[in-house]
């Protein structure tokens, strides 16, 4: 049965985030919950929070078990690993290296219930591994070719593992050609437990209604949306269960794709896309 391998320290899985850092990412998010911050800033926050969550899931006491290898590839004016600080320049690192090597701990404040119907401000620390960036064009094909190269090597070395998950996040069309065929080549990479999952998350500056986890491209607004839909993997069982649990009406044909996502939708998508089970 595919997508059923236990995720263990002997057979870890892999998350690779491929993020658009082109100039247009400097625009603000659309949608009713937009705070006026740029998509690049919000995305960096979302990825940092996601890495924090992955570390916490793998934490056992004062150690972090290496259930995952993680990479962040950015593309815009330049293309390459986006993790910064001691992990800078590396395509993939273990989740324990992530845990012990944030660039800095940022102090933030959040509002929490005071237990009497009101809200109080509470300070918390957010570890930071990547910083916001937005510059240049959208060399999507080159970024996906880099992704393919990283994952071919990884899959060959982890043949018994739960297959890698790629979450590609962009806000616009490729400026270096049609990424469809390279997307198909990424999805063809496999371990004994299944093929690489390629999820596509499109961020929007407009007020258009988001489309999340569709089962067809019937409601896609344009050719670009249809292209990203076709590039996206049909959800494997653990992720389908997570999407169902969050209230999405999933079927066997549902794909890991969101279009015109606002900030809230983007964070939900990232959360569901990284919900693999069976950590041992």
């Amino acid at each position, binding site marked *: 049965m595919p997508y059923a391998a*236990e995720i*263990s*320290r*002997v057979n870890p899985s892999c998350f690779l985030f491929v993020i658009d850092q082109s100039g247009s990412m400097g625009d603000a998010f659309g949608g009713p919950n937009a705070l006026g911050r740029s998509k690049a800033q919000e995305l960096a926050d979302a990825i940092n929070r996601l890495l*924090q969550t992955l*570390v*916490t*899931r793998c*934490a*056992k*006491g*004062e150690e*972090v078990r290496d259930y995952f290898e993680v990479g962040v590839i950015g593309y815009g004016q330049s293309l390459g690993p986006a993790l910064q600080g001691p992990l800078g320049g590396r395509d993939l690192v273990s989740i324990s290296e992530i*845990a*012990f090597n*944030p660039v800095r*701990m940022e102090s933030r404040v959040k509002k929490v219930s005071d237990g009497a119907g009101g809200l109080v401000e509470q300070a918390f*620390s957010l*570890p930071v591994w990547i910083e916001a960036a937005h510059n240049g064009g959208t060399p999507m094909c080159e970024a996906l070719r880099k992704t393919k190269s990283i994952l071919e090597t990884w899959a060959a070395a982890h043949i018994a593992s739960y297959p890698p998950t790629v979450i590609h996040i962009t806000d616009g069309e490729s400026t270096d050609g049609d990424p469809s065929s390279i997307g198909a080549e990424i999805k063809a990479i496999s371990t004994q437990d299944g093929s690489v999952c390629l999820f596509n998350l499109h961020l929007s500056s407009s007020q258009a209604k988001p489309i999340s986890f569709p089962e067809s491209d019937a409601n896609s607004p344009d050719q670009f949306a249809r292209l990203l839909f076709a590039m996206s993997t049909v959800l494997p069982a653990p992720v389908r269960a997570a999407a169902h649990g969050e209230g999405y009406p999933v079927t066997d044909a549902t794909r890991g794709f969101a279009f015109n996502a606002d900030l809230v939708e983007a964070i939900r998508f990232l959360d569901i896309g990284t919900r693999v*089970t069976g*950590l*041992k």
Partner: protein
Amino acid sequence: MIPKIRLVFRAEAPKAGNSLDECEDQSGVSEERGIYALADGASEASYSKTWAGILVREFCDVGGLVEGMNGFETWLDTCRNRWRVWERDLHSKQLPWFTQEKLAQGSFSTFLGVSFHASESYAGQGIWKAIACGDSCLFVVQQNWLTLSFPCERSQDFSNAPPLLSSLPYPVRDDLAMRQGSVSPGDRVYLMTDALAHWFLQLYEKNEKPWQRLDELTTQPDFDSFIGVCRSREGMRNDDVAFIRLLCDASSTKQ
């Protein structure tokens, strides 16, 4: 004559690939008091072995006195106080950010506690009282027939999200199951955590008598080898296991 409950065998086994020290399923035994307990610490929580250990130890210390829902909640408060003392000591040193964050989320475990008492009504019989939260199971076999399966009754009753006791003050009232019954000399009693209990019920549903295979196990190496076979050939989930086997003897030693 009051029957004596005798501990015949007790074992724990970690997930394949983990060391015994990493096993988060814990068992507790107070043979002189006739009290036995299992707790299955949640894999995704931190320090769940510690929390599971507190639960079984505290139950063995006072479990015979845990009566009804209110008694259980009082006992659970004691366990949570023990956890807070332990956590305060842990915080006396500098902890990594992720350790602090996960500690704030609390720890979680299933729980099964069983206490044996003399029967006031029937000479020669004993009474057992069980309390459970989650899918750690109690089985009673009388004259080679399974007469009790508690709290899970069918193999389909197991899931990835059983009710759990938290080290944080979450309410538990709706998640508790309580039962009592009687044992007579010759009866066999088994306590086991979910992976083994699921295997047990699957075989039972195929009209087999899985307790006969468990009765053959007398040493930890026997148990390790048996669990290995079940995992590789009989579809047992790769999970931590804790197991206690008891026998009701005729001799009178406990009032």
